[in-house]
């Protein structure tokens, strides 16, 4: 048994046979039942055929351009393809070890390399590169051309824990929670889109678990503890038993949640707090309702694109989705955020595909957090924006629909977007004396918006603080860059101050300010946010029951006192210490559902 610490990014605990996915050289590794041996051998043989055809074509081309001598290198590669030590060896590994074709091929190559590593001669040792070239070609030809690992995942015979070096959000969005029990990732953080998706799918996940993929062998069992942030390789029986009883408690409490009268929850001293849900897929509505969400505070419409170009998702298709969400959530309000993507994604790159950076740069498309994205992109690509606005205006007639604009950084942008909405509403004949205009809110994510909330309040109907981006822009941290991701600090005094000031600047206008970032899913941060004056939260459905429970146990009075002190502490470490001192029960939250100590600090 090996324990690997990581970041808890999606709550819950799960264990099962490991399925390994390496995105850097895309490979899926998993065990297969005896019935699939022939299929996997067939895949190997087919990959060998395709590779041989490709290599012969390359050889002919090189012979023509560079001469027979260089071309003979590819003749050598053709021989390697047919060599008994490679594909035939992999075939035997599929049969004897019952593993999929990719895994068997990697094993055969590893065996070869293990012997070759002993070779003393540098020049000859470099010949390993020729073999690696052939193996790389076979690997690529094993994978279906476009679908990457997703189609391979479809070959999973039994539910498994997915262990991966990295997970693109477009891939995470397609995971089937009935087949993927849990996620153990080497990279990522709480606010990575894949972590957000894991939470929305209710899949326990741990991110930032170093070198976890290197631990996976045939038949390895993996336990993912998304509460404590730990991956356990080949867990001992008592560890599994503990996890099982914890999961049983969680299921029991989740089952009782709807009975606990969804609706306004109040703090221990009677202040009402509202919880709404962040979702990106329509099938999350049931989970949102079951969790007691009083609406959808954030529907991330860009996930509807799922890697397709925006043109592929026309007005009618969008209208049907938006209408469906708003009707199924009735009578609660639904805030649809317009596409929050960059130029590469709206061209069909998919949100955050790991390898589309180069492609996007080649095509001259804008990428990155400071580029042409979100509202800037919508105002620039008018046709796509107008399509979305018409769909929203039509769907808005069917319920309490609100529109939320991402990344607004000036009043000008808000005005332009509102004008576009008015015109779209006229186009679809949606305005009239009987139909009230759809409320338009903005995300507060950019410091320029945070500093001018009072000015924006004159023209925005409501605000939603997007903490993920707000923290990124305030602290100048690219959270996708592992080397600086550690600087992404929700408890930085600057973050607490900017949230305090947003609330203060909005107050005279009476505009409501919600907070929709993942920051609120952290119990300590939630207490501070309450104290800073936030009383409406939107978060992933899975996080709502525990947050509601926490709110019931704290008093607003104590939360305020703590927050007032916290904003004057110099570092996040000091702020965490302050929280620990005033709310000692937070340390063990959410453990011990039964007989939990009353959540009250010293007064």
């Amino acid at each position, binding site marked *: 048994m090996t324990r690997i610490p990581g970041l808890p990014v999606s709550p819950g605990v799960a264990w099962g046979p490991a399925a390994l996915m390496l995105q850097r050289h895309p490979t899926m590794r998993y065990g297969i039942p005896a019935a699939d041996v022939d299929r996997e051998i067939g895949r190997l043989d087919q990959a060998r055929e395709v590779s041989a055809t490709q290599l012969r074509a390359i050889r002919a081309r090189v012979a023509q351009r560079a001469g027979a*001598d260089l071309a*003979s*290198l590819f*003749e*050598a*590669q053709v*021989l*390697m393809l047919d*060599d*008994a*030590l*490679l594909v035939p060896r992999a075939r035997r590994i599929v049969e004897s070890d019952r593993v999929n074709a990719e895994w068997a091929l990697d094993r055969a190559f590893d065996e*070869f390399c293990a*012997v*070759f590593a*002993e*070779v*003393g*001669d540098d*020049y*000859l*040792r470099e*010949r390993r590169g*020729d*073999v690696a070239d052939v193996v790389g070609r076979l690997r690529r030809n094993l994978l279906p051309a476009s679908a990457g690992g997703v189609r391979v995942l479809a070959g999973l015979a039994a539910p498994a824990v997915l262990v991966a070096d990295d997970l693109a959000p477009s891939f995470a969005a397609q995971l089937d929670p009935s087949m993927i029990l849990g996620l153990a990732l080497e990279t990522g953080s709480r606010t990575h889109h894949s972590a957000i998706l894991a939470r929305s799918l209710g899949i326990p996940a741990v991110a930032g678990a170093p070198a976890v993929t290197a631990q996976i062998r045939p038949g390895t069992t993996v336990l993912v503890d998304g509460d404590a942030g730990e991956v356990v390789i080949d867990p001992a029986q008592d560890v599994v038993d503990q996890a099982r009883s914890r999961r049983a408690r969680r299921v029991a409490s989740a089952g009782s949640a709807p009975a606990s009268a969804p609706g306004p929850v109040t703090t221990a001293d009677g202040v009402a707090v509202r919880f709404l849900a962040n979702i990106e897929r329509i099938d999350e509505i049931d989970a949102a309702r079951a969790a007691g969400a009083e609406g959808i505070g954030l529907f991330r419409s860009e996930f509807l694109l799922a890697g397709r170009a925006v043109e592929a998702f026309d007005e009618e298709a969008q209208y049907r989705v938006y209408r469906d969400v708003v009707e199924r959530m009735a009578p609660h309000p639904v805030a649809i955020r317009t596409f929050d993507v960059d130029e590469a994604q709206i061209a069909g790159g998919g949100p955050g595909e790991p390898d589309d950076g180069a492609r996007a740069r080649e095509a001259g498309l804008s990428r990155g957090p400071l580029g042409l994205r979100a509202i800037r992109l919508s105002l620039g690509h008018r046709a796509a924006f107008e399509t979305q606005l018409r769909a929203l205006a039509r769907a808005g007639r069917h319920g309490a629909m609100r529109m939320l604009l991402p990344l607004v950084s000036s009043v000008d942008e808000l005005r332009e977007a509102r004008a576009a909405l008015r015109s779209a509403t006229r186009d679809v004949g949606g305005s009239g004396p009987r139909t009230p205009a759809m409320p338009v809110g903005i995300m507060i994510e950019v410091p320029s918006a945070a500093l001018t909330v009072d000015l924006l309040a004159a023209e925005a109907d409501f605000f939603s603080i997007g903490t993920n981006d707000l923290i990124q822009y305030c602290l100048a941290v690219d959270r996708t860059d592992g080397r600086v991701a550690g600087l992404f600090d929700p408890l930085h005094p600057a973050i607490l101050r900017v949230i305090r000031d947003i609330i203060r600047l909005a107050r005279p206008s009476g505009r409501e300010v919600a907070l929709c970032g993942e920051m609120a899913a952290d119990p300590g941060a939630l207490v501070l946010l309450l104290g800073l004056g936030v009383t409406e939260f939107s978060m992933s459905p899975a996080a709502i029951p525990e947050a509601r429970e926490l709110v019931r146990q704290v008093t607003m009075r104590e939360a305020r006192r703590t927050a007032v002190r916290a904003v004057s502490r110099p570092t996040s470490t000091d702020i965490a210490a302050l929280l620990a001192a005033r709310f000692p029960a937070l340390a063990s939250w959410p453990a011990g559902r039964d007989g939990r100590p009353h959540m009250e600090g010293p007064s």
Partner: protein
Amino acid sequence: MLERTVTIRNPLGMHARAAARFVHAAGAFQARVTVTRADRGDRRVDGKSILGLLLLAAARGAVLQITAEGADEGEALGALCRLVEAGFGEEP
């Protein structure tokens, strides 16, 4: 079964292309061909397997022991030894 030793002469040793030529030459005969390092004598590999030959890591000066067994073993052994001694037909 026939057997002979022969020394690698070309500067780059038995690299991928050289090994490919050896495999082609061996493949022209019915005889079973195996190769081992006479100067190390550890591993005996199939003379018709390019990856096996690469595993011998035969740099310049390495001494190979080639065996051939089968109807055309004499011709096979002669042809393969000539190929190695000719430096696999590469420029010296």
